[in-house]
Structures are given as structure tokens and as C-alpha cells.
């Protein structure tokens, strides 16, 4: 079954087509552009391009997989709304996967791993994976120092992801070079069981982890002196 994968939780705007068969998940086409400020412009043309690359039409799709974040809100929503609207039109199921899993799962090879992406405001979105790639803590948002302390408690010996590169000094863990951003094939792999079982469609709710910046209205200041 041909599956569209989108992720816009990091500066890497990603669209991919994968073929999910009974025993395999194979990449058919892939477009990724690293630009933190143009998610809205980049994603739709990339979806169009991967369809063209695979010589496929939207109606050939059997499911959509979307990275749920965590990630900076505005960009994150682009991927989720694209996935949800395409799923609606095509009447195909949509499945969500924590975007950090697309970094942490493939990086885990025996020892626990800290996967981190940039949360801006000098913070990280992060999660810790055991040696088999299962997420054991997270996703959370905190300062790099707090993430590093928790990761060490959990026995992490290596860090991975764009956030790990950015805060390598604070984290004090060796940094694996790849994957730096959520891997589209891995996101599909982590949804493959649901895809094969034709599991019910899922509402794609973003992993915001932060509340909106807003304060309730306070008393009005008088204009008279």
C-alpha cells in the first residue's frame, strides 16, 4: 500500500511516499528541505513532487502518516493540517507518530539514547529511548540542562537529533550525526502495524507540550491622572 508521510515538526520540512507491504516498509520518493521559516510554502509542493516522482496520483494513496511533534507550533500545524485534509478528501485513514520517535528509534542500538529537537526559547523537546528503540520517557520540553540530567539518570550514553547538535556542550553526551531530523521511513515503520491492520483513522492532535502565551485580562488602567 502506498502511504504518504509528512513531518513539519523541525526545520526539516519532509514529505515522502513509502510502500508498506506485509513484511516491508520501502521508501519510494522523498523530499526534504531544511528551512525553519517556510513550512507553509514548502510542504504542499513537496507532496506534489513525491507523487510525481513515484508516478502516482493522490487517489493511489492508502493512508497518511504524520509526525505529531513536538515542534514549534506554527510549522507543526502545517504538516498536520495537510495530512488531515488530504485524508478527508481521499477518505483514507491518518495515523500520528511522535516525531521524536523518528529520530530516537533508529538511533538506539543497544544503549539508551536521548533524542532532542530545538524547542526555541533556549529549550529542547526531548525523549529517551531504551536500547531497543522504545520511548521510555517523554516527549517533554525543558532546558538542555534538565534534559541532560534526566537522560543520564536513565542511562543514556548518546544523544541524537538537531537539538542535540545545537546543545551538545550542555548535554555532555557524544552526539550521533544521523538522523538529525525525523526519518520519514521510520515514521511509517512505526505506524506500519496500524496501516496493515487498517486500524481506525486517528485525529491528528499536535504534541504542543506548551500552553499558548496568553494572560487573562487584568484590570483596566485608568486614563485620568
Amino acid at each position, binding site marked *: 500500500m502506498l502511504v504518504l508521510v509528512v513531518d513539519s515538526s523541525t526545520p526539516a520540512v519532509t514529505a515522502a511516499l513509502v510502500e508498506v507491504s506485509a513484511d516491508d516498509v520501502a521508501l519510494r520518493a522523498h523530499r526534504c528541505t531544511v528551512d525553519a521559516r*517556510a*513550512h*507553509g*510554502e*514548502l*510542504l*504542499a*509542493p513537496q*507532496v*506534489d513532487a513525491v507523487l510525481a516522482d513515484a508516478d502516482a*496520483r*493522490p487517489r493511489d494513496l492508502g493512508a497518511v502518516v504524520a509526525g505529531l511533534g513536538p515542534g514549534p*507550533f*506554527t510549522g507543526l*500545524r*502545517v504538516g*498536520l*493540517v*495537510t*495530512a*488531515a*485534509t*488530504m485524508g*478527508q*478528501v*481521499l477518505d483514507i485513514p491518518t495515523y500520528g507518530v511522535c516525531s521524536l520517535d523518528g529520530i530516537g528509534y533508529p538511533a538506539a542500538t543497544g544503549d539508551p539514547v536521548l533524542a532532542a529537537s530545538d524547542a526555541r526559547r533556549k529549550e529542547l523537546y526531548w525523549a529517551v529511548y531504551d536500547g531497543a528503540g522504545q520511548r521510555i520517557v517523554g516527549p517533554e520540553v525543558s532546558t538542555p540542562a534538565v534534559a541532560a540530567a534526566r537522560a543520564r539518570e536513565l542511562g543514556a550514553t548518546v544523544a541524537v537529533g538537531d537539538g542535540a547538535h545545537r546543545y551538545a556542550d550542555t548535554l555532555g553526551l557524544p552526539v550521533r550525526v544521523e538522523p538529525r531530523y525525523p526519518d520519514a521511513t521510520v515514521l511509517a515503520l512505526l505506524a506500519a502495524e496500524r496501516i496493515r491492520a487498517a486500524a481506525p483513522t486517528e485525529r491528528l492532535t*499536535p504534541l*504542543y507540550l506548551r500552553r*499558548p*502565551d*496568553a*494572560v*487573562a*485580562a487584568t484590570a*483596566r488602567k*485608568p*486614563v*485620568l491622572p
Partner: protein
Amino acid sequence: MADEPLILGIETSCDETGVGIVRGHTLLADALASSVEEHARFGGVVPEVASRAHLEAIVPTMDRALREAGVTLADIDAIAVTSGPGLAGALLVGVAAAKGYALAAEKPVYGVNHLAAHVAVDTLEHGPLPEPAIALLVSGGHSSLLLVDDLARGVTPLGATIDDAAGEAFDKVARLLGLPFPGGPPIDREARAGDAASIAFPRGLTAAKDLAAHRYDFSFSGLKTAVARWVEARQRAGEPVPVADVAASFQEAVCDVLTTKALAACRANGIETLVIGGGVAANSRLRAMAEQRAEKYGIQVRVPRPKLCTDNGAMVAALGSHLVAAGVAPSRLDLPADSALPLTTVSV
């Protein structure tokens, strides 16, 4: 009518998620989800709260619109979406949604100007707009006077507010008077029982010295402060605040300036049609005053019904329909959301 293109419109520039469907000038569906109640305790629209609500509402709102019109996305000929101006994060949800629908259904997408859509919506109620026309657009985010030569290709801005939008002044005065957010409807209601001539509030940018540089511009910040000073003086003197009279007098000042300048623009340009749109156009006094004053100059005032004045998807569909009929080319898939889209750009 069945030959005319079927156009879908998506609106998410502020706190309303709207999906409208039109065929030609005929409205088939106008589905709306609002996050206004989530913003009330903040005293104004919180952009991130609005953006989150759009993401949750877009799919169900689309479902409702399609059901209401009795069509599927496969039947739609083109999708129009507000690409600006408005709140950046909120616009982006609508633009990304429109592209998702357009991609999946293999339809063209048109990124359109929110303010031009407020003008176009009138065609759903009153038919084709005579051009040129003058348009007065007044809402919580905008207060503009436009010369509409050709709604499909460009409009000429004549003036705009230099500080607060008219709707913003309604919100702030409502808060001062202890009335709920948004302030337009409660002030309109209170004003009906008040005396509009009881308090002489200032008319911004109407003095001769201001008209030279700001003939068609508006200013509502000074009016809002004048109301605050008047109310506070009453309160400090231990006297009750006559809410209905304050509401009526404030509303009268706003409507007086808006209609005076809009009709002056019509007369100066020899134009016989004035269209009023935007949320403030739902105000009953503005509608009545505009019609009454226009009559003596032989100017025809066109104001859509209140539900079409506030933000909605039908207005975007109406503009999309106009663009398709005029043979305007669709937008590209890399269409950006532009929070500051200029008035001179009708479609991107």
C-alpha cells in the same frame, strides 16, 4: 446556474473557521466554527488560541459545508482561501488546509485578500457589483475605505485607520462599560435605549486641519480615551454611569465619521454605489445612518446581512467565484500566508 463554477472558500484569518460554497452568486453553504468564547477571558483574540482552534475545526467545518450544499469535493471547481491579511499563524492553517484539499482533489487553489472578500460577499445578496464602487470595510482588525475599480484585479486604498480599528474601539468601550467581548453586539443593544445626542464625543480626523492630510483616514483611539475619561469622571464623582447613553453617544460618533467619510469619497469620485462590509457593518446604527445619509445624494448603499458581514467562508468563495469568472489564473502550491497582504493584491 448549473453551468456556473462551483467554488469553495476557506477563511481562518482571525478567530472564525469558515467554509463556504457558492455557485456563481448563489450561496449554497456557509459553515462556521468560532473560538470567540475561548478568547473572551483574555479581552481579545489570542493568536495561538485561534490557530489551535482552526486546526481542530477545519475538517468538521468542511464536512458540514459539503453536507449543507449537498456536494462533494470532487464536484468543486476551485478552492479559494484567505491568504492575508490577518493573524499569521491562523492564516497558515487555512492556507495549508486549502492546499491539502486542492492537492488531494486535484483542484486549483486561489489565495485571496480577506478585505476584497468582504466586498465580494455582497454579490451573494445583491448580485453583481457596479464598478467603480466605494467600499467601507470596518471590523475588529481593519478600518479601510477603498475605491473598487475592478474587484478581480485590484482595488485602490483611499484611507484607513491610523490607530485602532473601529471594531477594536467597540471592544474597548464595551470593556470600560462592563459589557462582554466582543463589544459590537452589546453596545448596539444598549445604545437602542440611550440618547445618542446626550454626550458630544469627538469625531477623529474630521477637523479642517486634519482633513488635509487624512481626508479618508480614521482615528478611534482618541474617541476611546474620551469615553474612558468621561466614564471615570462620573465614577470618581460617585455618580452612576448611564451605560445606554454612553453606548449610544459613542456609537453615534463612530458611525458619524464612517458614513461622512465614505459618502465624501463617493461624491468626490462621482460614484453612486457604497458597499459596507466587515463585522462592524453588522451594527444597526451604521446601516441605518448610511442609508439615510446616502439617500439625499442618490447613492445606493449595499450592506450584506449581518451573518455575511462578519468573517465567514462564503465571502472567500464569493471572491473566488468572481476571480474564476474573470479568468484570473490560480495561485501556485507554494502560496504563502501573508499577514500583511496589501489591499492592492486581490489574489496571489
